[in-house]
């Protein structure tokens, strides 16, 4: 696992911008394009994309963060057997990263102050902690290995904002943001404050990498788009608001007007994960010409026929480019979670779905939940109104899923995968897998005309039983 620092300057080629025709010809030892600010990249002899999502090590032979300045690279930090996953603070003063002091250590989260190169360990856990990102409001997120897989966690980043706790509901300590089995890794923070994360699809049980969103208090989890297809990972939000990501080995983007991913017409190559956008709108990409080649850092102006090598190394993959420049701070999410140990869910019309029409009339909804060990338990059923609405109280902070049943109890539709609702969250679903493009009709759901008390599917003893117990004990 140890990866000592190795001859960076000798292996790297830098020059003033030289036009290079075509990607393939711009490879090893070719003159490279220069960018106008410093850059941090992760260099690794072997980079296994998406290995993490399968519980494997993506840098099986170690990795090293490099700072690229004025055409020369140097180790970003000293004294680490491995370092990766750089994320720059919004003011470009500090860098969060995952590092191992010794090869046998788990990945931990550290912070480097660029000005004086001072270091501090931000997250110290017995298990691996990776992929840190700064959040607004003095918090941060990262992925931490748990018995249920890597989970996204949040905590204060150690930089109090005016001495104020900005997000009191989120709490001062570590707050888990994901609650399904499987591996989930933060990929970025969108300007609207939501955290973009990678996990398998269907969530909680599937293996196809997909991109999801969650608020900074763990509420509102959903797919970015519901046109699930090829492996999606490594999303980056551009200044335009579009999210560019790797789909398979190509690039694609989510754009606000469309409900589906759009391929990016970039030069043919294998791309790896996150990109960085320069001030001029060019993209820094990690790409390679074939599976047998190493990833290099390329610069590409969207629309151009070719891209140009910024940084390459003959024996290393170069991934995770990060520009050392201030960037806009995303919005902080003001958590509105209630101080409850359960959650409420209101479905407006279960018949609305991207999966097409139901084969019958839904009469009941069945809730299943997983316990800590991953055992699935049926929590009960609740009636579905004639307009397709239902209102239930559900267990929170654990994997749940719904199934629609007809009057005879036959399953009409089973939810794709698992999701969760945070404690104190009140959530409304437009339909069942309706997709983010589907807005609700403006009508009162019939269930709320019938009752304002949700059907209790939490598995708690009914209130009457609790009263009886209390009464009995008092005697």
């Amino acid at each position, binding site marked *: 696992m140890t990866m000592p620092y190795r001859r960076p300057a000798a292996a790297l080629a830098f020059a003033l911008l030289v036009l290079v025709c075509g990607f393939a010809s711009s490879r090893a030892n070719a003159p490279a394009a220069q960018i106008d600010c410093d850059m941090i990249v992760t260099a690794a002899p072997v980079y296994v994309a998406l290995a993490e999502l399968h519980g494997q090590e993506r840098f099986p032979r170690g990795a090293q963060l490099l700072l690229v300045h004025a055409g020369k690279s140097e180790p970003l930090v000293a004294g680490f057997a491995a370092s990766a996953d750089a994320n720059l603070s919004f003011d470009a003063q500090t860098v969060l990263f995952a590092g191992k002091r010794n090869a046998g250590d788990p990945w931990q989260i550290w912070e480097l102050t660029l000005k004086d190169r001072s270091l501090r360990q931000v997250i110290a856990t017995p298990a691996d902690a990776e992929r840190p990102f700064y959040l607004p409001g003095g918090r941060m997120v990262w992925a931490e290995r748990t018995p249920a897989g890597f989970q996204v966690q949040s905590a204060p980043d150690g930089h109090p904002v005016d001495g104020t706790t900005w997000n009191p509901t989120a709490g001062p300590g570590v707050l888990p943001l994901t609650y399904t089995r499987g591996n989930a890794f933060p990929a970025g923070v969108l300007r*609207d404050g939501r955290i973009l994360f990678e996990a398998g699809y269907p969530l909680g049980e599937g293996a196809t990498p997909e991109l999801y969103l969650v608020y900074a208090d763990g509420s509102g989890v959903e797919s970015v788009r519901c046109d699930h297809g090829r492996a999606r990972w490594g999303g980056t939000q551009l200044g335009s608001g579009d999210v560019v990501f790797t789909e398979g080995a190509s690039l694609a983007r989510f754009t606000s007007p*469309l409900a589906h991913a759009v391929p990016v017409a970039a030069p043919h190559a294998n791309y790896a994960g996150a990109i960085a956008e320069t001030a001029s709108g060019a993209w820094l990409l990690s790409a390679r010409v074939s599976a047998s080649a190493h990833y290099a850092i390329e610069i590409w102006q969207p629309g151009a026929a070719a891209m140009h090598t910024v940084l390459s190394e003959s024996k290393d993959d170069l991934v995770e480019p990060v520009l050392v420049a201030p960037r806009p701070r995303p919005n902080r999410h*003001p958590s*509105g979670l209630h101080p409850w140990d359960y959650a409420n869910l209101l479905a407006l019309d279960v018949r609305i779905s991207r999966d097409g029409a139901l084969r019958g009339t839904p009469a009941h909804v069945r809730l299943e939940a997983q316990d800590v060990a991953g055992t699935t338990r049926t929590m009960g059923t609740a009636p579905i109104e004639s307009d397709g609405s239902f209102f239930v109280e559900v267990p929170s902070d654990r994997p749940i899923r719904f199934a629609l049943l007809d009057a005879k109890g036959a399953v009409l539709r089973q939810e794709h995968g698992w999701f969760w609702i945070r404690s104190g969250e009140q959530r409304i679903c437009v339909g069942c897998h309706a997709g983010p493009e589907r807005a609700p009709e403006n009508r009162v759901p019939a269930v709320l005309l019938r009752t*304002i008390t949700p059907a209790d599917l939490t598995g708690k003893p009914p209130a009457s039983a609790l009263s009886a117990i209390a009464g009995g004990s008092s005697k």
Partner: protein
Amino acid sequence: MNGALVNTRKLLPHAAIAILAAFGLWLVALSSLAPATHAAQVENGLEVYASPLEIVVSPDGARLYVLCQESREVRVLDAAKYTLIKSISVGHTPRGIALSHGGDRLYVTNSWDDTLSVIDTRQLAVIATWPVAGEPSGVVADLAGKHIFVADRIANDVAVLDAQTGAEEKRLMAGRGASYLALSPDRSRIYATHVYPNLPPVRTGFENRTPPQSEITVIDAARATVVDRIPLKSITGVFHMAFTADGRLGAVAEYHPKNMIPLAHLEHGGAFAYTLTLIGADVGAPIEIPLDELDRYASQPFGVVFTLDKRSLYVSIGGSECVLAIDVQRLLHFVHSHPRPANNSFATDLAASGNYVVARIPVGANPRGIAISRDGRSLFVANRLDDTISVIDTRTNRMASTIALGDGKPVSAMRHGEQTFYTARYSFQGQIGCSSCHIDSTFDGITWQLEPSGFGRDIVDNKLLEDIKGTEPYKWTGTNPSVPVECGPRTEKYFWRSEQYDDRTLADLALYILALPPRPNRLHSPDDELTPPQERGEAIFKRAVDKFKKPIPESNRCSYCHSGPKGTNQKLFDVGTRKPSDNSSLLKTPMLTNIALTAPYLHDGSARSLEEIWTIYNPNDKHGRTNDLTKDELNDLIEYLRSR
């Protein structure tokens, strides 16, 4: 000071005076090339900004007439050089502007004066000021030069005036809050829209659980009669309408609230859709199309205009501070190539606009009125809250230039507060601003259900903001002690659902809201003299014994809870209106300022009229002793309340 001037003149030789005179003439000549700015104004110690609201282009394309609401003037600009030709003063809070068919007259409604200014466009002077009751707003002139039509916001009608004398001939019932008028290209039809939804015509007991309904009132211009009412389902604010030159396609800007659903989150159009309804032969039955996208919204559309060649449709988006460019052919293709929803609305499809919106062009603060130059190459956008006109090149859909109307004075705290009120930038994905629900800083005439109360609980009527200073606590439950608290963390958490403004901006917003004056109450005599019914009603309002000579407990007298200059003692009471879905029976006494305008009534909007408060919802006299009153006496009480 005057003495010093006299002394100076005494010292000047004749030659110097001649030079100064020549210099003065040169200055006069130079004024015709002056920028479009205007001297700074101050009123009541506050900066007065131009606040351009509407623009019209003269028939020959040589002039722009810019209606400046706060500075109460029409600025006449050279349409080529964008220089100021003249500023013409009009009345209080002008809102509508229109040219006569030939362009020789310019009509401006003065909404708080209840007048119409008639401007001679050759003299560039007001030649007449005609009375038009009921808060005149939108205005159009017919083809024959016979009638002027004026939409009246609080009268809910369209006044028909003699175009020569201004004499009112009749009124046509329009939608509630009638405000904007559009002419068909042949000027044969007038289309009236309104900013508050119509009240349900039939009592069902579920009025406050019924989606709002609005309409486009269609008027035969020659006969001055209503010939159609086009229903707009689930629509509240309806603003400008425009037509293609061939008359085959019309589009109207509107708000589509989601007030029937608990306001739990904003993603996926949780609070509003912002839409256009299309009418005309090109689409067949009216069809609603959304302007929003999945991740960003077109908050508060206002102005609509087609290019003459029918290639493009532009919509100003007040809260999103942009203009949308729509490709008309692609729009029609979308409408015809997709299965038409049963409710004739694509409003639930956030991916629809990607089929026809081709550009989102950033402009200034709170863009409102828009107009196209006669050659079709320029789109003019009135940015109400930063005193500029954006000029957009319609060939590139890019900003070509910006016309400054202000004199460069800094943005005051009050102005900053107003900008904050009208922008949607602080809400999640820019979906809502204060003005989404408080249209033109008033209210929206509908009820909402806020998530913190619990799903289905505490249906609450939205209230008028004008004159609320000194009426705290706020909210129907009285849980917010001040405007900064109301608009601060609570609003951030449960409305914006996103990081909001800083403390200074919050203070400015509160300053603006607390300074909102009440519009003049037309039923209240300027000298405070009451009409006989109002006098009788006041006596009932203040009475201490009922008609059976029984004392009315102090706490059950109208004048006890509704005391003070604004008609509230600011305390909470149980007036017997609690519904099973309400968390509390205690409600804060609402103020009475302009209560006549703010239907529906009661905390949950269940009463469609003031009458229903007592005829239906006060069976046990808990909301004041009223069951001893006759119908006439109740009418008197209501007449008095309407004068408050």
